[in-house]
């Protein structure tokens, strides 16, 4: 109604209660050769060649974003096939036939503590780059670029807020493996020279707070603190997380490192730990199937697993006669896909299947709920009006480029107007 809306039903309660099933049945695993940032790619293995866990099987090319591809199972390379990736685009995928032995490649060796202590910033950066670590919160931004900043870093933030509804990947990780997060945070602090580390979590996650605080007692040499911040949406947006956890206001569009802050998702930090300590790339992720059109289930699955298999393993969709909306990611900012033929990549943490709901758009009644709720302080209704008249200067003046497409304006609209989509169109129009 006419108020600032910050809380959205988060749908995590039921998911948290479900067990996490370790999914290891996939016979074939698929590795996209290209991604949305790397338009080009090449493989360095041949059909029939035997690969092992952690072996480099190719490179996705794209200047800064160039990253090696790693096999996550051992087995035989059997060819390529087209499947969809996270962005919903059809891409070539390399297929590896799983031999279910999970033999590790010979480069996969643990580093001793002495070796780790001797690592310099450059070493950290090159390890992270070799293991093709990316921001696992959803951005898939290469971690090595963040780590190799030349600015002086004072504090590293581990972002465990996960404010999107229906996602429990970070939550499950913090509960099951807090050590990896803390170690990863310490490595990130070493690599960047930061003195202070902060783990930001939601206030209502009391169990996480206890778990982390308990583990942190072993690391009393380091200045690491668990900070509880609000439960609202979009609290996980790094600028809001940092503002509420540290009190540092960072203008939109500026690099965080300029203000002495580095922000990593907790999963990314765990992957840094695995890369530095065990020399492993990201092998597995937590993934949950949720929504009213499917039996809800949490999985731990290898990168490269085909989503179709997961869907089949829970018995397919419910009520097939009702049309469904498939969403990769959360219900506020996720990507809509047309089928479940999707390869699990680093940032795939959730598939939501929703039954179709008819929404009838009514005329705008100027209630201003969207204006009150916008987390970046722009005025969606004014931008909509400016876009209707195709007033490019006005759209720019109204600050369309600040829009983070969080979806709150559409969410709150009592007339069910799809403002977020209008914002996207206006943004595209203004930048033309």
């Amino acid at each position, binding site marked *: *109604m*006419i*108020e600032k*809306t910050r809380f*959205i*039903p988060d749908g995590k309660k039921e998911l948290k209660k479900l067990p996490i099933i370790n999914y290891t049945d996939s016979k074939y695993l698929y590795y996209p050769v290209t991604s949305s940032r790397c338009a080009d790619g090449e493989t360095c293995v041949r059909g029939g060649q035997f690969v092992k866990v952690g072996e480099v099987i190719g490179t996705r090319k794209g200047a800064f974003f160039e990253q090696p591809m790693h096999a996550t199972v051992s087995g035989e390379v059997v060819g390529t096939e087209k499947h969809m990736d996270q962005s919903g685009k059809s891409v070539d995928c390399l297929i590896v036939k799983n031999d279910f032995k999970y033999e590790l490649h010979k480069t996969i060796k643990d580093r001793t503590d002495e070796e780790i202590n001797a690592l310099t910033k450059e070493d950290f950066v090159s390890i992270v780059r070799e293991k093709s670590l990316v921001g696992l919160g959803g951005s898939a931004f290469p971690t090595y670029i963040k780590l190799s900043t030349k600015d002086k870093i004072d504090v590293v933030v581990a972002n465990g807020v996960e404010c999107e*509804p229906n996602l429990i990947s970070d939550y499950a990780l913090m509960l099951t493996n807090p050590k990896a997060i803390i170690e990863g945070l310490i490595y990130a602090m070493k690599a960047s020279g930061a003195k202070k580390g902060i783990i930001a979590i939601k206030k209502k996650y009391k169990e996480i707070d206890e778990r982390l605080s308990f583990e942190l007692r072993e690391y009393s040499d380091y200045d690491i603190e668990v900070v509880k911040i609000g439960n609202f949406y979009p609290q996980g947006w790094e600028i809001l997380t940092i503002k509420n956890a540290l009190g540092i206001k960072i203008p939109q569009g500026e690099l965080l490192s300029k203000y002495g802050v580095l922000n990593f998702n907790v999963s990314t930090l765990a992957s840094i730990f695995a890369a530095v300590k065990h020399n492993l790339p990201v092998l597995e992720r937590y993934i949950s199937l949720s929504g009213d059109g499917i039996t809800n289930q949490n999985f731990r699955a290898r990168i490269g697993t085909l989503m179709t298999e997961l869907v089949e393993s829970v018995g397919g*969709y419910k009520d*097939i006669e009702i*049309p*469904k*909306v*498939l*969403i990769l990611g959360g*219900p*506020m*900012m*996720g*990507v*809509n*896909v*047309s*089928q479940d033929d999707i390869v699990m990549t680093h940032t795939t943490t959730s598939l*939501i299947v*929703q039954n*179709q709901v008819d*929404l*009838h758009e*009514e*005329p*705008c*009644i*100027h209630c*201003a709920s969207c*204006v*009150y709720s*916008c987390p970046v*302080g*722009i*005025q969606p*209704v*004014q931008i909509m*009006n*400016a876009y209707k008249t195709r007033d490019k200067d*006005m759209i720019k*003046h*109204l600050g369309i480029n600040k829009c983070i497409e969080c*979806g*709150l304006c*559409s*969410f*709150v*609209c*009592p*007339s*069910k107007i*799809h403002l*977020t*989509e209008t914002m*996207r169109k206006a943004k595209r129009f203004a930048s033309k």
Partner: protein
Amino acid sequence: MQTIKQTSPYVRKDVSTKRMMIDVLIALTPVVMFSIYRFGMDSLIRILVSLVVMVGLEAIAFGMMHKPVKSDDFKERFKSRYKDFTINNITAPAVSAIIFAMLLPSKLPIYAVVAGAGFGIIVAKMLFGGMGSNIFNIAAAGRIFIGLALADMFTGTYDGVDLIAGGTALTAIRTGAGFPYTLNSYPLIDMFLGNIPGSMGEISALAILIGMIYLLIRKSADFRVIVSSLATFTLLIFVAGLKLYPEQVVEYTLFHLLSGGILFGAVFMITDPVTSPTSRPGRWIYGILVGSIVVLIRLFGAYPEGVAFALIFSNMFVPLIDYPQWATNKYKPAFFIGTSVAILALVAIVFFGVGGIA
């Protein structure tokens, strides 16, 4: 299985325009009940007439404004005109109709009611494009139209328990005995409960306040416009009272607050979102504007009462307040400086205006 293309977000909040409209209708019930209790059939008939005219005319105009599909079958063409007709095309005019009826005296001739309701819904709403597009408050526009065009019909139509000056408390203070003697015939407690002559919905402050509390709890009205308009009104009347009746300034302020349509207007008419600005500072400014214009009309104008006028006049400023070049949802220093200066200026105008500079 069929999949559907959609864009994020895929979840929506459980609110609707329908709920907002129905909330206003519910909030209006105490006022309507009270008017029926006070004026009986007179009130009921006028409310029903207003409802039928507004809802019916909106439906007719809606059909005329929508292009039919090409078809030989009359039924099919007719149906296609009403394809987009929703519950909101009934609840919204119903809200306007009841508010409009509440602004009328109980003995007003029926055809005046029809004329005002028709003007409001056709000229002030549908000609502007229907729901969400009107720039003037529909009920206020209708009330002003008949107030000016059919002015003679209003004389002697205010029904009350004790008809002293043949009009409302506000006409009494102007043309009758004058303040503070009006307090004898209109004690404050009667004014609060609604035991006075006046328009059907405006007399009982109690009923209005119950409606206000409901609206605010349900968040179907913005508290900013209510607070800013009432605060501005109270402040300026208080200042005028200081000059005019220094001994009875509290009674004077309360008298003004409880008489006329200021409370009803502040709760049910200013809060109409369609004709309000769409930012927080804008809504404060809008409330100040309405509150101060009501005071200026009451103190210096030719009419005893001016909520409808103040509202229509402020509606004209909404596009200016909302002009995207400067409208913002942030409270900037310019907003605080601007409003403080404006309020100080208004206080000075009222203070020196009522008593002279001597």
